[in-house]
């Protein structure tokens, strides 16, 4: 037959039935919309990173160190031509006297013309805080405490007048600022705060603006290793770009995975809608065949129809996706360090259309290829059914192509063959479990069918296994949707619960650090006066690793065969001493010797993970540089450290009798009974000891909750696509079952079944399907969230069953409702009318 005639027949055949494919179209539209929106957002994000990277970094070269730069390195940095600014940043408490409130803040003391690119968004505009004792304070913090320009802020021992509001802190993500808002002051006023003490957590940064004829990346490449080996970092605009792109590619990959799952769910919808369509067309196909059309020609008539509709759907989906991307920056606002301008991304649209079309058509082909085998004999006998070959090569090729397409898409997304294979395997596994459960259910119901139950229960139950049942399609589509949603709820709930559990029972919930030795006792008195326990009072001494196993650190750095990890070598050691190990730690090798007599060898205890990273074991020698004095020690024991509470823990623990006279500061850990006591205690401590910082679990929880709710909002926004598509798939699957069941329902109505009986049969069938699907989905969610929580987040796994029960009831209820809505036609209209409407 000529191609033109195939198209003509495809057009004719479809014209009175196109409405039946609306479900088919709507699921593709949503799937492609999700894909295009996410990809457009990503491409705009990457483009703006390129555009704004310079102003995000604010300089051409940035040097970072966690101690003051030594002369030798300053000379190297000063060899760079151009302008220079310096910044000293530290975490500390701030006190607002007018508001009688204290807040943990990040102080940035700046000197010079930084930022050289972009600018700090302040009120008043271009506010100068360097030449007077004025502070530029984070706008959010001022709003929180109802403070205004002109009020005071006390930082350490110095009081500053609040001169400006910091509207936008470029280069940093909004999320952390609730926990430690930024306060800018002039570098020359920092000393008056007296906040820099031994043991303070201080970051030193030097910004350089170089001329156009200077290549910062080349300069960095030549010196980066030297700087890194000495615990410093160099950043350039190009490096910043790469970091940002990498950071956002994880977010984007995650969102893309959600989009892919949405698209796959949509494709299940596609397959069921096409199946409905083909089933409706069986008689027409038989007539075509009878009049002389061959199987392939009949197939092409429907292939052309589906292809045309799929193309139309992906176009609509791409248009909607492009419109949706306008909202994504609002959803992800809190995660972005800069504003993203949304433009039409033709690349995203092209990819969305291509991926959407390929996956859609592959899934549609599964039911479509069966058209080839529809026998013309059906014109004579409507009940005739073709024998299905056990192995249809074309069908299996299509299944193979589907797996290949998913794998290809994941590969292009992740850029890693192994990850793509693991994920494809995971998806096939989830589908496999759902299909497996469906098969087992069908087998079990048939095998153990309760023949003595009443008619309604038997009828509803038998619908699960009778010919043309929808058990498999429904369990897969509803189950997958439920699995995604439940995993989201479980993981989010567990992260929050693990954190809040830190302060439960007798666990500590408040930690004070930066305490000088002379302040230690008075602080302990204040704490006890509030009726709070002194759970830990620990000294901390900072020291550097000088050498180990007979070689100095410098020698190890040059040794290309070394196995020690760089982070373990360069880490500034924060060491404590004690006669016993903490109750939270467990000695797993060797023995802890709590006291050392003068002249004896010093046996220290190491955290097991740090020892592993440095590749040292029991008996190995380690030499420390304790603020100028070299101290030789030996590894005496290894500990497993518990990180799941708010107490201090140390990778390196010295025995008593060595470090008592070294410069040190202290940490105090306690438990406050309530928020009011916390606020009063905090204010008193900050006023008496401005250098002491207090972190309480309450504020961590508020911040974490804030982060998680923003994150879950973003995820839920994307998951809404999956849910919506899941609903459409559910409706289309139920439509399919309606098509299967309508004749028998009508027959039952004809022979006298009342409305109530038909509704009850449907409730039993859909109730069972909903319950089984959601249970399977919940099971998959439990397994996947267990793996995520245990191996990715490394938290305790326990489940709150109430929200899961709610999900179960909701999914089952919705399935029943849609099932009942579906049978409304059968129970409300005269049987003959329905029979006529559904006739071919």
């Amino acid at each position, binding site marked *: *037959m*000529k191609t033109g*005639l195939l198209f*003509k*027949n495809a057009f*004719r*055949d*479809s*014209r*009175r*039935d196109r409405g039946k494919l609306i479900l088919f179209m709507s699921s593709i539209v949503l799937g492609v919309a999700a894909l295009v929106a996410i990809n457009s957002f990503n491409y705009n994000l990457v483009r703006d990173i390129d555009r704004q990277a310079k102003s995000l970094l604010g300089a051409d070269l940035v040097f970072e160190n966690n101690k003051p730069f030594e002369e030798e390195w300053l000379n190297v940095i000063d060899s760079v031509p151009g302008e220079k600014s310096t910044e000293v940043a530290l975490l500390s408490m701030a006190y607002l006297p007018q508001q009688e409130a204290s807040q943990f803040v990040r102080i940035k003391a700046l000197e010079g013309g930084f930022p050289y690119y972009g600018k700090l968004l302040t009120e008043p505009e271009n506010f100068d805080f360097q030449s007077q004792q004025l502070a530029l304070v984070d706008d959010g913090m001022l709003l929180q405490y109802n403070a205004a320009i002109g009020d005071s802020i006390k930082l350490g021992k110095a009081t500053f007048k609040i001169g400006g509001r910091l509207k936008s802190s470029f280069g940093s993500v909004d999320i952390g600022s609730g926990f430690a808002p930024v306060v800018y002051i002039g570098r020359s006023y920092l000393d008056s705060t007296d906040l820099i003490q031994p043991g303070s957590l201080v970051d030193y940064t030097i910004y350089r603006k170089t001329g156009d004829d200077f290549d910062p990346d080349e300069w960095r490449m030549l010196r980066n290793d030297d700087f890194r080996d000495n615990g410093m970092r160099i950043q350039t605009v190009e490096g910043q770009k790469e970091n940002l792109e990498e950071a956002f590619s994880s977010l984007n990959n995650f969102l893309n995975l959600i989009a892919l799952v949405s698209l796959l769910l949509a494709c299940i919808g596609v397959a069921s809608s096409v199946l409905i369509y083909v089933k409706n067309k069986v*008689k*027409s196909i*038989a*007539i*075509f*065949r*009878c*009049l*002389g*059309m*061959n*199987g*392939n020609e009949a197939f092409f008539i429907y292939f052309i129809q589906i292809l045309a509709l799929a193309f139309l759907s992906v176009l609509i989906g791409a248009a909607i996706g492009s419109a949706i991307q306008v909202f994504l920056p609002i959803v992800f606002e809190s995660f972005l360090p800069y504003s993203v301008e949304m433009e039409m991304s033709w690349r995203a649209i092209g990819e969305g259309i291509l991926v959407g079309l390929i996956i859609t058509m592959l899934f549609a082909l599964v039911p479509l290829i069966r058209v080839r085998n529809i*026998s*013309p*004999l059906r*014109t*004579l*006998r*409507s009940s005739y059914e073709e024998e299905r070959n056990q192995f249809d090569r074309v069908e299996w090729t299509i299944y193979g192509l589907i797996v290949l397409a998913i794998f290809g898409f994941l590969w292009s997304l992740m850029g890693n063959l192994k990850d793509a294979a693991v994920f494809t395997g995971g998806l096939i596994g989830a589908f496999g479990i759902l299909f497996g459960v469906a098969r087992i259910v069908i087998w079990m119901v048939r095998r153990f069918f309760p023949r003595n139950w009443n008619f309604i229960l038997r009828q509803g139950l038998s619908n699960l296994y009778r010919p043309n049942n929808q058990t498999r399609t429904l369990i897969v589509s509803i189950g997958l949707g439920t699995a995604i949603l439940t995993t989201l709820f479980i993981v989010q709930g567990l992260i929050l619960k693990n954190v809040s559990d830190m302060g439960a029972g007798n666990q500590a919930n408040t930690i004070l650090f930066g305490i000088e030795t002379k302040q230690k006792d008075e602080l302990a008195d204040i704490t006890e006066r509030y009726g709070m326990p002194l759970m830990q009072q620990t000294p901390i001494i900072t020291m550097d690793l000088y050498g180990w196993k007979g070689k100095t650190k410098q020698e190890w750095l040059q040794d290309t065969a070394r196995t020690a990890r760089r982070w373990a070598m360069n880490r500034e050691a924060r060491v404590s001493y004690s006669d016993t190990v903490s109750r939270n730690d467990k000695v797993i090798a060797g023995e802890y010797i709590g006291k050392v007599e003068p002249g004896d060898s010093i046996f220290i205890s190491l955290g097991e993970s740090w020892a592993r990273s440095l590749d040292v074991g029991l008996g190995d020698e380690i030499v420390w540089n304790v603020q100028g004095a070299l101290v030789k020690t030996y590894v005496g024991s290894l500990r497993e450290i518990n990180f799941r509470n708010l107490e201090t823990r140390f990778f390196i623990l010295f025995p008593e009798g060595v470090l008592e006279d070294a410069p040190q500061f202290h940490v105090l850990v306690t438990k406050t009974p309530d928020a009011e006591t916390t606020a009063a205690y905090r204010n008193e401590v900050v006023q008496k000891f401005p250098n002491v910082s207090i972190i309480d679990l309450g504020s961590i929880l508020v911040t974490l909750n804030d982060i998680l709710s923003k994150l879950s909002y973003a995820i839920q926004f994307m998951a809404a696509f999956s849910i919506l598509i899941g609903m459409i798939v559910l409706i289309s699957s139920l439509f399919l079952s309606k098509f299967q069941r309508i004749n028998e329902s009508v027959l039952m109505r004809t022979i006298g079944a009342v409305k109530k009986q038909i509704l009850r049969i449907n409730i039993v069938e859909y109730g069972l399907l909903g319950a089984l699907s959601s249970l399977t989905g919940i099971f998959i969610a439990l397994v996947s969230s267990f793996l995520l929580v245990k191996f990715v987040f490394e938290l305790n796994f326990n489940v709150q069953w109430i929200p899961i029960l709610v999900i179960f009831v909701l999914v089952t209820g919705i399935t029943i409702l849609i099932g009942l809505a579906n049978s409304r036609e059968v129970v409300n209209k005269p049987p003959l009318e329905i029979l006529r409407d559904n*006739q*071919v």
Partner: protein
Amino acid sequence: MILEVSEVSKVYEGVNRSLTVLDDINFSVEEGETVAIVGASGSGKTTLLGLCAGLDVSSSGEIRLVNHHLNLLSENDKAEVRNKHIGFIFQNFQLLPTLTAMENVMLPLELQDKAAEAGHKAKELLERVGLGDRMNHYPNQLSGGEQQRVSLARAFSNTPDILFADEPTGNLDDETSVVVEKLLFDLNKEHNTTLVIVTHDMELARKTSRIIRLKGGKIMTDEKVKA
């Protein structure tokens, strides 16, 4: 000889036992002959029609239709034979619901890539069966008798060598049956087509030139009808 059926059997294999629907059937049909296959329900007459028209495959034996060994042809070849040489009339009319009366009649010729001829021929045939004013109506806008008349027009549109009719008046009232029967035989005569009718209506069977009576899957009698 336009149709030759030799030693044809059709057996359905079940799980525990097999069911023989047709057993050792032998007959042939000359060009221009009109034949009725009659028998009670379940006697195998529709199965025999399906086999003769190449809609089904026999378990054993041989069927030659318009010089084609149906058993040796692929599904696609059989489709081509049906398109070029066979016309069908069904009890349930089997019109495509998405096509108008005109398009339904045009379809067999269009399948032969004779689109230009199809329109003209369809119009002529529809006028011949009295539906000149209903050409653009869809099947569900037509009565049962009208649908069967469209079906008749479609059956003759490709000028078939042989026409198979399965209970052509089975779904029609007496009055309409008379009209359709008359049209069927008149058109058959005009086109000099061989006609094979499956029916249990003896009155209709007697209007043919020969009656083959089936019982339990076997031919009981094969007689000429006396004029």
